């Protein structure tokens, strides 16, 4: 597997929120991490990014053990992250957001920026508009584009469709599918379990900080138990 | 109850230091330090009530002190009858018109319904100044021209000066009400800046309205709640008392003329010490009363509620407590205490000098006292006041001592040495800054941190 996390155990202060969690995702795959509120999904993602200190566990990227790396270094190694909130620079223009996304890249990024505008066409007209003035769905697009500027190999998304309307949610999932087509490994935490599984190759379901179920998207969607417990029947 | 040992140690230490000063320098200096400490202790208790009980940052201390000082003159100075007859009526009339204007502003603000409301409000507010100028102007000029050199103002009501302390508290509370209504909703650092700037406006007013305060011409020769040195020196009972006290020393001098000179010296120094002691007594009574009330209030149900609000405002709001109103009460009470102390200070100095109210000296030094002593508790505020004042006054002789020791070999006419000695008054600011930084870093809760009060 291109990216894997094994036996993640950790939390805030003395209390462990996640225990022995494991995930893996390959390039060109969309993998969802689902589960009820408080299951530890976001915590697990933060642990994989190095924002949270781990008591135990390891994170492997393309064969390299990156567990000891700081967040910034993991980003330099090819991981990108879109947080759930505050995921754009509201006071910078759309164009500037993209430029900041590629901050660590030297050299000419105009080609990459054009690629982003192709991927997210709406942003074309909004290039010089302050990102904070955009609608919720458009902001999420900017957030995604910003994260993609570094040509990441792994893209991690924390609840990308939180708080948006169903129409916008569909749009966002469309965009994520397009991202998958670029051979990027997409790992996403989601609350809208059913729609997420619809576009996912595989999924993990966390319950109280532990891996409870895993399997292909279809399998998880169609299993009666799981559907009743987690997908709202 | 907090750990009594801490407090006893702290106060004991202070007492020891003062005694040392008394022996090594003079009792006059020691008592001067004590009195200023007592006054500042009241100031810092006022600030501490706002900061410690409610988490309110009041950087407008200087303004409330000025109000207190203003109260002393308006209460205790005899009225200048000529000025009153020249412009008194006009001033009273203007006051009424001002009151009507402000009332109408409030009315429009609360009750007016119209899309032009804000414009009307704006127009009303900016018109206050020209209207006042028009209405009060002639009276003001009349008053200021009466005996401008020695008077030039309305004077006061010729009442005992201690009454002015309470009047000062009252005025300060009213101003605090207005400021509080306007500013208390603001975030903490904005509140700090607003109060700082409003105090600037208050001091500007006190400095420039000469018809009311004499402005920068100052008011001197204020009354006292203690005897004047001159009166003591001229009263028989005092001289006899001193003669009795120093019987031993006087009997050692055989020459009659020398004896008289020695007696005079003793009477002079003793009179100054006696006066200072009188003040110390009065100030101590004030401080102790304040302390007793505050500690009682802290332990009362009201105090518990205030601490609950401070520690978790959202929870308190959820429980239905009117946080805004409580904050306003605290702000008013704290400011009243500060105003009270402002009057005390002017009384002690015997003169009212509006130009002396600077933020560095009157607002921020007090804050250093509160932070150094221990935020959130009254004993800490008192200790902080003592420590800061002690350092403030003693840093000058201390700096001189250090300079002289370090440069003992060097001639007294050396440029550098002279320059350093000239700069001694500023060393205390340096020490204040360093002290504050050290305390905030290594003992951020202050010298006497607040202990959790178990109920």
């Amino acid at each position, binding site marked *: 597997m291109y990216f894997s996390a094994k036996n993640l155990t950790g939390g805030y202060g003395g209390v462990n929120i996640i225990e022995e969690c494991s995930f893996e995702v390959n390039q060109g795959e969309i993998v969802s991490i689902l589960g009820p509120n408080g299951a530890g999904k976001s915590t697990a993602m933060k642990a994989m990014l190095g924002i949270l200190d781990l008591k135990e566990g390891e994170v492997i990227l393309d064969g390299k053990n990156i567990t000891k790396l700081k967040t910034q270094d993991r980003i330099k190694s090819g991981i990108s992250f879109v947080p759930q909130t505050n995921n754009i*620079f509201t006071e910078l223009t759309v164009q500037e957001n993209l430029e*900041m996304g590629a901050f660590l890249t030297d050299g000419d990024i105009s080609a990459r920026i054009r690629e982003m505008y192709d991927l997210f066409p709406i942003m074309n007209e909004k290039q010089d508009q302050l990102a904070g003035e955009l609608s919720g769905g458009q902001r999420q697009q900017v957030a995604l584009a910003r994260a993609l500027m570094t040509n990441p190999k792994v893209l991690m998304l924390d609840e990308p469709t939180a708080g948006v309307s169903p129409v916008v949610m569909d749009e966002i999932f469309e965009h994520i599918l397009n991202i998958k087509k670029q051979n990027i490994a997409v790992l996403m935490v989601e609350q809208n379990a059913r729609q997420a599984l619809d576009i996912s190759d595989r999924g993990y379901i966390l319950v109280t900080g532990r891996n409870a179920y895993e399997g292909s998207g279809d399998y998880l969607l169609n299993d009666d138990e799981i559907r009743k417990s987690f997908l709202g029947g | 109850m907090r750990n009594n040992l801490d407090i006893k140690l702290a106060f004991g230490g202070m007492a020891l230091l003062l005694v040392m000063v008394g022996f090594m320098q003079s009792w006059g200096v020691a008592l001067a330090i004590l009195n200023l400490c007592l006054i500042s202790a009241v100031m810092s208790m006022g600030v501490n009530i706002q900061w410690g009980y409610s988490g309110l940052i009041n950087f407008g201390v200087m303004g409330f002190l000025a109000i207190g000082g203003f109260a002393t003159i308006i209460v205790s100075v005899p009225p200048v009858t000529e000025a009153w007859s020249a412009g008194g009526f006009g001033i009273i009339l203007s006051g009424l018109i001002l009151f009507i204007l402000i009332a109408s502003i409030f009315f429009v603000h609360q009750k007016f319904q119209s899309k032009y409301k804000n414009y009307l409000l704006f127009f009303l507010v900016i018109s206050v100044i020209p209207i006042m100028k028009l209405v009060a102007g002639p009276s003001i000029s009349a008053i200021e021209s009466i005996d401008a050199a020695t008077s030039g103002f309305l004077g006061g009501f010729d009442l005992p000066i201690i009454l002015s302390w309470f009047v000062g508290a009252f005025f300060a509370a009213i101003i605090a009400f207005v400021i509080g209504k306007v500013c208390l909703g603001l975030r903490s*650092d904005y509140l700090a800046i607003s109060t700082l700037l409003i105090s600037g406006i208050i001091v500007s007013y006190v400095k420039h309205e000469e018809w009311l305060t004499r402005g920068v011409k100052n008011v001197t020769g204020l009354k006292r709640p203690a005897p004047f040195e001159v009166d003591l020196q001229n009263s028989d009972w005092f001289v006899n008392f001193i003669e009795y006290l120093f019987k031993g020393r006087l009997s050692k001098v055989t020459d009659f003329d020398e004896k008289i000179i020695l007696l005079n010296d003793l009477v002079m120094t003793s009179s100054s010490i006696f006066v200072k002691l009188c003040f110390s007594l009065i100030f101590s009574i004030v401080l102790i009363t304040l302390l007793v009330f505050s500690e009682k209030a802290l332990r009362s149900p009201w105090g518990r509620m205030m601490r609950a609000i401070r520690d978790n405002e959202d929870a308190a709001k959820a429980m239905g407590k009117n946080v805004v109103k409580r904050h306003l009460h605290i702000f008013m009470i704290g400011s009243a205490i500060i105003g009270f102390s402002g009057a005390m200070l002017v009384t002690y100095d015997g003169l009212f000098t509006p130009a002396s109210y600077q933020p560095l000296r009157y607002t921020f030094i007090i804050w250093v006292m509160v932070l150094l002593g221990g935020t959130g508790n009254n004993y800490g505020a008192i200790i902080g006041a003592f420590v800061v004042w002690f350092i403030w006054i003693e840093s000058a002789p201390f700096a001189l001592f250090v300079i002289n020791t370090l440069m003992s070999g060097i001639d007294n006419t050396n440029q550098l040495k002279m320059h350093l000695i000239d700069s001694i008054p500023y060393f205390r600011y340096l020490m204040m800054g360093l002290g504050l930084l050290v305390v905030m870093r290594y003992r951020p809760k202050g010298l006497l941190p607040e202990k959790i009060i178990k109920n």
Partner: protein
Amino acid sequence: MDFLNAIVLLTNYIIVPALTYGSQLALGAIGVTLIYGVLRFANFAYGDLMAFATMVVILTTWYLQSLGITFGLLPTAILALPVGILATIILSLFFDKTVFKYYRDKKSEPVILIVVSIGVMFILNAIVRIIIGPGDVIFMDGARFIMKAGEFKKMTGLNEGIALKSTQVITFITTIVTCSILFYFLNKTKTGKSMRAYSNNEDLALLSGIDPTKIIIYTWVIVSILATIAGSLYGLDKSFKPLSYWNNLLPIFAATIVGGIGNPLGAFYGGFVIAFTEIGLTYAYKKFLVYLLPEQLEPSSLVQYISTDYKFAISFAILVVVLIYRPNGIFKGKVI
């Protein structure tokens, strides 16, 4: 109706002084707002930082003058600016490392940082007064006037004249140039944009790989440059007196908040808003109206809204009003 004289009067007594004063406030306000936006605290030591910077410039100026070096028509102090800037940068970084960094890392409450900046303020204040004394220092040299009122009157034949001090022109031009460079830096360069990004959303900036240490250094460097220029220009124009720098901090705070705290462009405009309001409201318009109105309507009083004694009070009043009704500033700014 004497239009021309009226306009010249206004130019001389309001427009020229307000542009100068506004420039001084603008430079100061941008510095304060940058510190607030990036370093996230209201720096009460800023006035004394300007005083320190100016002090170094003065000492260097004296040194240069003693060597016989001058700058012709321009004040020698301009040559001394780089030294002042360097010294101030070193000092700022020193205090950041020894004082502010600790609390920033701890994510302390804004209050604590204000208090600590007050400690630094006391220290700087003392240092400046110990080194150079508390009194007035005048270090202006070179040509004092670009145009004297009398010359203007002769040239135009008008009743009223315009006096242009060289410091006024230098102040205004320097401010425009400095601010243009600064805004170009902030808006068109990668580093500048990264500063704005960091100020806007620290976590996301870190996630983007922006190095906070570098941002902080850049900020202090820029702030030090602004403080040195602002302080020196003010000292050249009026005189150098340590306590007056502290007093000037208050209208600077007012300008910062009016412009929207954290918003450098707003701070720039805010400086001029405060300056024009202060000067405009304390000017006696009698003569102006006399030029404009027919004789019967001529006013007899001074027609001065409020006396110049209350100059500071005006900016404070503006500030308090802004804080209550538009705490984000008149121009679009942000509240952290």
